[in-house]
């Protein structure tokens, strides 16, 4: 079993490396880092621009394959991902932002998963009844709403609530209140209050998707013969569904959970922008906007690592849930 997991991990690691290198090549071909300097007034001389680009290792005059080689050698020998166009190291920039993003992602995904599973199971058990219909319409509505609209709607609601209560209960701009005095608890509550809305926004979107999948997985299980067997042993319908049904219905979900954890990053980028969080989503967004090849590749690498971890995790969880795949 351990051997199997290790083999899968190596597999994912190779895929991540390929994805990152491809991203580098793709970015080098599409993004034009020189453009940033051309529009300046006074326009720097070509030689100056070349020197700057050479320093970053993104000069389009150097063949892509050579730049890729240098980038990879740098990564392996010095553990460096190069520098951003603001002359800060990509690694340090990412280290500062990753925590912010992961806090949001992990919390959002866990809450989304829990609610998604509960709503999905609930909807399946009460198929076509009012509560099922309500959950279905609700999740379709959320799935159809762009994430920035959802974020803005939440902000409007929070402002209304704050106005109604007369105190700033929910703050939603940035990650924390700048220049806040006070002890550890004060800071903790401040961060929690800031975390609330973006987390709700991510969790809502996630839960809407999960609940649809969980509902259909559960519907397959509902009519299964082993539920009938469990009831024939003396379980009530509800307890048979929970003990024997949900456990089996979670098996196909584990893969979906793990992978969507990584893909939530894309959705989180918009959420981060809406709530002015300086996370990885914003980093990726700005890298493309500013034609920053090194930063872009770094962001892709970060995403690839998330996929790598999630993929391995999903294999472990799958094997833990389903004895039939254990080897």
């Amino acid at each position, binding site marked *: 079993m351990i051997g199997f997991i290790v083999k899968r991990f190596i597999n994912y690691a190779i895929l991540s490396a390929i994805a990152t290198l491809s991203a580098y090549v793709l970015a080098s071909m599409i993004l034009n880092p020189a453009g940033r300097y051309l529009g300046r007034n006074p326009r720097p001389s070509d030689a100056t621009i070349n020197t700057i680009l050479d320093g970053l290792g993104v000069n389009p005059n150097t063949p892509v394959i050579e730049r890729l080689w240098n980038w990879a050698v740098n990564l392996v020998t010095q553990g460096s991902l190069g520098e951003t166009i603001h002359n800060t190291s990509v690694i340090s920039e990412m280290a500062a932002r990753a925590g912010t993003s992961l806090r949001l992602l992990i919390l959002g995904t866990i809450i989304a998963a829990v609610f998604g599973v509960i709503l999905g199971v609930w909807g399946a058990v009460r198929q076509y009844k009012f509560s099922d219909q309500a959950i279905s319409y609700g999740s379709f509505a959320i799935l159809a709403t762009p994430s920035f609209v959802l974020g803005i709607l939440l902000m409007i609601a929070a402002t209304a609530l704050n106005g109604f209560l007369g105190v700033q209960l929910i703050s939603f701009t940035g990650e924390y209140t700048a220049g806040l005095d006070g002890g550890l608890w004060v800071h903790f509550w401040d961060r929690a209050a800031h975390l609330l809305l973006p987390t709700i926004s991510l969790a809502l979107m996630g839960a809407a998707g999960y609940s649809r999948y969980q509902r259909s997985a559960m519907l397959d299980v509902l009519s*299964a*013969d*082993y539920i*009938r*067997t*469990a*009831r*024939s*042993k*003396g*379980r*009530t*319908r*509800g*307890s048979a569904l929970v003990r*024997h049904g949900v*456990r*089996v219905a979670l*098996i196909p979900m584990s893969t979906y959970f793990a992978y969507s954890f990584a893909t939530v990053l894309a959705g989180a980028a918009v959420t981060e922008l809406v709530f002015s969080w300086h996370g990885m989503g914003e980093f990726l967004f700005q890298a493309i906007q500013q034609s920053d090849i090194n930063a872009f590749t770094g962001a892709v690498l970060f995403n690839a690592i998330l996929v790598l971890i999630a993929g391995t995790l999903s294999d472990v969880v799958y094997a833990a*849930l*389903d*004895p*039939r795949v254990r080897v």
Partner: protein
Amino acid sequence: MTENLTTDLSLARRRGASPSNHLLEVRDLTVTFPQPSGSVTAVRGVNYHVDQGEFLGIVGESGSGKSVSSLAVMGLLPSSAQVSGDILFEGRSLLGRSDKEMSKLRGEGISIIFQDPLSALTPVYTIGTQIAEALLLHDKSLSKLAANARAVELLKVVGIPNPERRAQAFPHEFSGGMRQRAMIAIAIANNPRLIIADEPTTALDVTIQAQILEVLQKAKEMTGAAVVLITHDLGVVAGNADRIAVMYAGRIVETGTVDQVFHEPSMPYTVGLLRSMPNLATAGHTRLVPLEGRPPLLTNLAPGCPFAPRCPVAIDACRTTEPPLIVFGNDPANSAACLRVAEIASGALDRSQLYPVPEPIAPADRAEVLSKSVLRVEKLVRHFPLTKGSVFKHSIGTVRAVDGVSFDIKSGQTLGLVGESGCGKSTTIMEILELAKPQAGQITINGVDVAVMSKKERQALRRDIQVVFQDPMASLDPRLPVQDIVSEPLTVHGVPAKERLKKVLDVLELVGLDPSMASRYPHEFSGGQRQRIGIARALVTDPKIVVLDEPVSALDVSIQAGVINLLEDLQEKLGLSYLFVAHDLAVIRQIADTVSVMYLGRIVESGPAEAIFDNPQHPYTRALLSAVPVPDPTVERTRQRIILDGDLPSPTEEISGCNFRTRCPLYLLMDPAGQEKCRTVDPVSRPLNSSEVACHHAEHIDRMTGTTKQPQRP
């Protein structure tokens, strides 16, 4: 363990109602499933009762309402079902109880064994956990450890070897027979007063079926529980049940003691069902009497007796009023729902003449056949390598699916190939149908070796050898009308469109379908009709050889006879040769001229059908035959059963010497020198009496019948 169960049993008896009352009484039970297209009344006024320790058999075809009525007793019907009438268990009504109240009774008072044990066990929990769960649910004071220990004991009771280790296994690690044993263990865990077994052996091989029925009987004796056995197979209940209830179209149409129902059936449906079943004791000598038509749809039932459209002795009154179940004769246990029951019971209407026996094909219509070999298979081998690894594949063993099979079919003859599932029957016919050079051995069709044929010759030869598959629903494309399905083989062989249609209509007529139905789609036909379409598709190219892969096993009993008769008639009319693969020995007995018995990729015995069935020489053949239930209680009671141990070994297993010795009852009876021979020397087929037998000790086969009790394996 046994003491435990018996003390629990006397407790259960004391708790139970007074013996004058019935343990379970079902009164005027009606179950309706509302559907947008009109509600379906699956059970229409069923009355029956079961007394303590009694064995009731409920027999019926699919859709007769037998399972629905038992699920109603358990309170396991979907919530949309509307149930009326009354169900009394130990004198108390079960209808209208909440799920919570019912759950206290389920498993403790009444337990149920379901048909398909693979899907009936939760895949993610171990067998031991699932048995312990049943115990813990009803005995809160039981510790988890004690429950697990008890689960192991229960596994031992139902005959699972190595129960301590096997309790840790997951359902997918068990074979079908073992899973069903585990289901029985769950059912008897709390010493219930009533066990309902819903088609417990339907998906299993005959040898495993015999084992399971024995375990069920043992479980009944140990717990003293009453048993309701629901089945479509009359043979299964003949030997075990005290009373029988026959269901048709949602009602009980006849009930009585087992002897009464089998020997003097009084409802025409029961008479027809018994006559239409191929029966080991009578098959091969008489033509089957088919029960024409099909059961009515329960959506909108016409007034009158639902059986009237299929009944040969229906009178006008039958079509207007539905007869109630009325007692006849002296024994109040016997009753039938037929207006003419008095005439049938008194003998005024002769039971044996009730159904017209179909005429055999007139000699003038019979095709002339020259006795020559049309299909000859010699030492056919098909091994599959077992590989491991995704990048570097390496072989870790071989599956000997077909391991040196030889047989010969003469024109106009039928060869029956029998064996348990997994013995290599299907691989054998697939190898033949491929018409390619086999791994080893030789396949000769019409005297030509298929290995040396050119592509064109092979294509032409495919016209001569056609196949009919098991599942008539899955083997017909649902999106093609029947005429396209049937004419497809002709399209392949480049027959012009005009001729094709004419040929299709002819062949539909030949298999007894109305040619005007040619433009309909498969789903508009019943199971028996669909199999006729499958036969028509095979016959449309005028083949010489038809390979029939379990052609009737997916059909209901009353439909089977018609298809078997059709196959017999077609053979006579067209001079066809059949390679008939089946696991049902009674069907083989009915249709085959020669029989080959397969075990683990080998043919262990072959010869003329009479010789194989009347005087089997190989211990496996003998065990197989003795495992087949016969729908005759007198025969069943006097028959001696040879029950094989365990399951069919995996074909990957290397067994030295004779590969049957691991389960062979004769092996155990031999002296050490004889056993040594079985262990070391692989037996070759040799002629004995009129068959070919692959057994060293076939001369001593009668030793097996000498012992009354099964020898215990050490």
